[in-house]
């Protein structure tokens, strides 16, 4: 048994920031299923929002305006006190990252460069070319190394241990040795990321299975707003690799097969820089109505950067250019990029308050795996990097405060019991079964992309629900090829699939129940927002029968009365 005061799960921005904030005063261990720099934070491109007022066009920007944009972007489902907190912390957190060495791009006056982004009233997105996640994650990892944070790379958490309303730690499979290890901790903090791979078309890394969310849910912690799934408007066809919103921030056009900048019809003021939910629906509408382009990999819309010129593309969007060349054989200096919308971000997640605390004693979560909620029904571009670091920091502060009263006594017994259970599960997965985990996962993700996508109807959602339930039944027959535990990625994948199915179940059920259209959740059969009945969060708990039971909770409204969104 490994023991720590505080166990952090996840080596992305949230987990590392929490660890850095706690390691001086407490005995902290950080567990990550990959080397931390492989975490999905690395893939964020466009930037991090903070009202620094460095851009000449943003001199009168403020945290209040940032909060308003965030709340409006969320289609008024964000908790306004939490959104305000995040936006107040934005400038300090960006300066802190800079002081720790983060190599942001610079304006000629030597200040941090800022570009326009979707749904934002001012150019407030701080960036480092188109590798902002890469530079932030490296900086925080460097900071963790400088502080000597105890990191366990390639430790895969199989289960979270909650008993009688208290968290005792986790059970880990050491990927390298194959050993099962209970890790006891007074406090467990999840920064385990989103569930993108529950969808077939996703920009997310292959490791983004949402297993942390599924684990928390299965162990008894509730989830919030799971039906809100962000589809990013501009993803490369085929691989669905992200083409940053920064492309449009720098001035790129979206063009249909008639050569029209069609956003003029839908969002005449914001044009290409309307929020993501809106732009994704516009692109999908253009494609559905026959104004897309044809390609063996699917129908698409053009993202045209050519008028920006070679110099600007090479300077501001070099990664985008390289990805386009490597993965689709197109140089955006010369040709438009073929794009389509794809799943990108999980607005919903583990239900926590603005201190990252869940209702379970000793269990906290932050970043994409959690739902505070600061993003409500639709997250603005540039707010996720912000969320990860801000709530990594605020979570660490809250934990430190809560531990002033003493470190909760985590028990060995429930952990050993859980370890036995995991042992049995792994044994069962390694016994012959007719379902291959990889193929069943492919089926699940195809169902989710097809039935729980950008445009939703009761009929399709009901079909999706039945299919997910059927896949859940078939999961009992999953068997992996080898009983060897070490470096057995088929085995870890099979464990994760179980959690992915649970996550999918909560998404589709939430989508069926929410009979309105708000932010990313668009119902063709209920195509307007309904504040009277639905200005509330969806809470999903695993019921005694193993199915999600849904309740609702209040949205915190402070200074911004819900209004219709116009861009």
């Amino acid at each position, binding site marked *: 048994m490994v023991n720590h005061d505080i166990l952090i799960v996840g080596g992305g921005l949230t987990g590392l920031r929490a660890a850095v904030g706690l390691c001086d005063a407490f005995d902290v261990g950080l567990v990550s299923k990959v080397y931390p720099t492989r975490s*999905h934070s*690395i893939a964020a491109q466009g930037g991090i929002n903070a009202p620094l007022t460095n851009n000449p066009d943003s001199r009168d920007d403020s945290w209040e305006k940032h909060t308003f944009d965030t709340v409006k972007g969320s289609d008024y489902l964000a908790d306004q006190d939490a959104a305000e907190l995040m936006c107040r912390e934005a400038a300090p957190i960006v300066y802190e990252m800079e002081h720790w060495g983060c190599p942001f791009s610079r304006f000629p006056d030597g200040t941090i460069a800022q570009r326009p982004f979707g749904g934002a009233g001012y150019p407030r997105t701080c960036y480092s070319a188109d590798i902002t996640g890469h530079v932030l994650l490296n900086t925080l990892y460097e900071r963790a190394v400088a502080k000597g944070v105890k990191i366990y790379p390639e430790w895969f958490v199989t289960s979270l241990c909650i008993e009688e309303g208290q968290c005792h730690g986790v059970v880990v499979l050491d990927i390298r040795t194959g050993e099962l290890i209970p890790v006891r901790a007074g406090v467990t903090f999840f920064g385990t990321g989103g569930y993108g791979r529950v969808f077939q078309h996703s920009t997310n890394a292959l490791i983004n299975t949402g297993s942390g969310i599924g684990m928390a849910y299965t162990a008894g912690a509730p989830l919030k707003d799971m039906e809100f799934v962000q589809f990013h408007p501009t993803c490369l066809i085929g691989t669905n690799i992200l083409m940053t919103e920064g492309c449009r921030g720098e001035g790129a056009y979206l063009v249909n097969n008639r050569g029209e900048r069609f956003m003029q019809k839908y969002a005449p003021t914001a044009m290409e820089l309307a929020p993501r939910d809106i732009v994704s629906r516009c692109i999908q509408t253009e494609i559905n109505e026959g104004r897309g382009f044809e390609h063996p990999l699917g129908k698409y819309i053009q993202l045209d950067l050519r008028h920006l010129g070679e110099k600007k593309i090479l300077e501001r969007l070099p990664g985008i250019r390289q990805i386009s060349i490597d*993965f689709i054989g197109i140089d955006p200096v010369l040709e438009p990029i073929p794009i389509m919308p794809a799943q990108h971000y999980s607005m919903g997640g583990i239900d926590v308050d603005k201190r990252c605390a869940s209702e379970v004693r000793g269990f906290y979560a932050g970043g994409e795996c959690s739902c505070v909620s600061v993003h409500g029904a639709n997250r603005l571009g540039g707010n996720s990097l912000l969320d990860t670091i801000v709530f990594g920091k605020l979570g660490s502060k809250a934990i430190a405060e809560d531990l002033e009263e003493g470190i909760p006594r985590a028990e060995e017994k429930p952990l050993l019991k859980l370890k036995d259970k995991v042992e049995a599960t792994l044994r069962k997965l390694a016994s012959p079964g007719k379902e291959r985990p990889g193929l069943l996962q492919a089926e699940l993700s195809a169902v989710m992309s097809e039935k729980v996508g950008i445009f939703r109807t009761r009929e399709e959602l009901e079909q999706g629900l039945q299919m997910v339930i059927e896949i859940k039944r078939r999961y009992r027959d999953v068997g992996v090829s080898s009983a*060897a535990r070490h470096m057995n990625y088929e085995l870890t994948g099979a464990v994760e699939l179980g959690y992915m199915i649970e996550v999918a179940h909560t998404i589709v059920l939430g989508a069926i129940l929410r009979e309105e259209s708000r932010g990313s959740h668009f119902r063709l059969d209920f195509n307007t927002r309904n504040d009277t009945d639905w200005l509330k969060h969806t809470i999903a708990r695993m019921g005694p029968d193993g199915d999600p039971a849904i309740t609702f909770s209040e949205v915190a409204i402070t200074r911004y009365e819900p209004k219709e969104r116009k861009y």
Partner: protein
Amino acid sequence: MIKADTYTFKILRYDAKAPDTKPRFATYRISVIPGLTVLAVLLRIRDEVDGTLSFRCSCRSAVCGSCAMVINGKIDLACRTQVSAFNTDTIILEPLPNLEVIRDLVVDMTPFWQMYEKIKPYLIRKSPVPEREIPQSEEERLRIDQYVNCILCACCYGACPVLAREPEYIGPAAAAKLERFVLDSRDERPAAALDILNHEKGVWGCDTVFRCIDACPKDVRPTDAIVGLRKEIVKHRFRKMLGKVKDET
């Protein structure tokens, strides 16, 4: 260029936990649609053909640095290598050299990370922290640009001929990381900090044959870093001889 439907993948298999079984090539015949990457094929093999195959992957878009390996004799990331990029319908995959194999295409990255940690890979400041950002000009930012792009994939580490004969050599990635900080206008580490690489297992060990530059998937030039660090060390030595700096600790 051959546009074969079916490709033969020969993958070097080995399990350090079963040392009696010698490394061997396993052969898989896979039909490939145009545009498929080596990583996509590896995933298909694991999902559909042979679940025991071990390899690392995460982002599948050449930014996380997980999937470095040897592909038809060339070190690269599996995720950004098109199957059709070779003038043959046989693709041979081997683990990254200069690191111990744990299983199949997975190598033990521990030495790589130890070298990384050794050079103090973080910004060191002595001046008080300003309220806002530490100013940095566009030119100063540009100076560190290529090193900032490093994704720590260890392609350079696998390609380095010095590491092949001297496992304690610091390697290209760690040197490039140190240069990233030395060149950063905000960094205030003392010149003596370079002593950490001022020996034959540090920057003086490099053969300057540029294999690391060829292998880097992100156009980083670690040899530039090594040459830059050598110059900096020599410069510091002269300044010391001329009595222009006091010994720093």
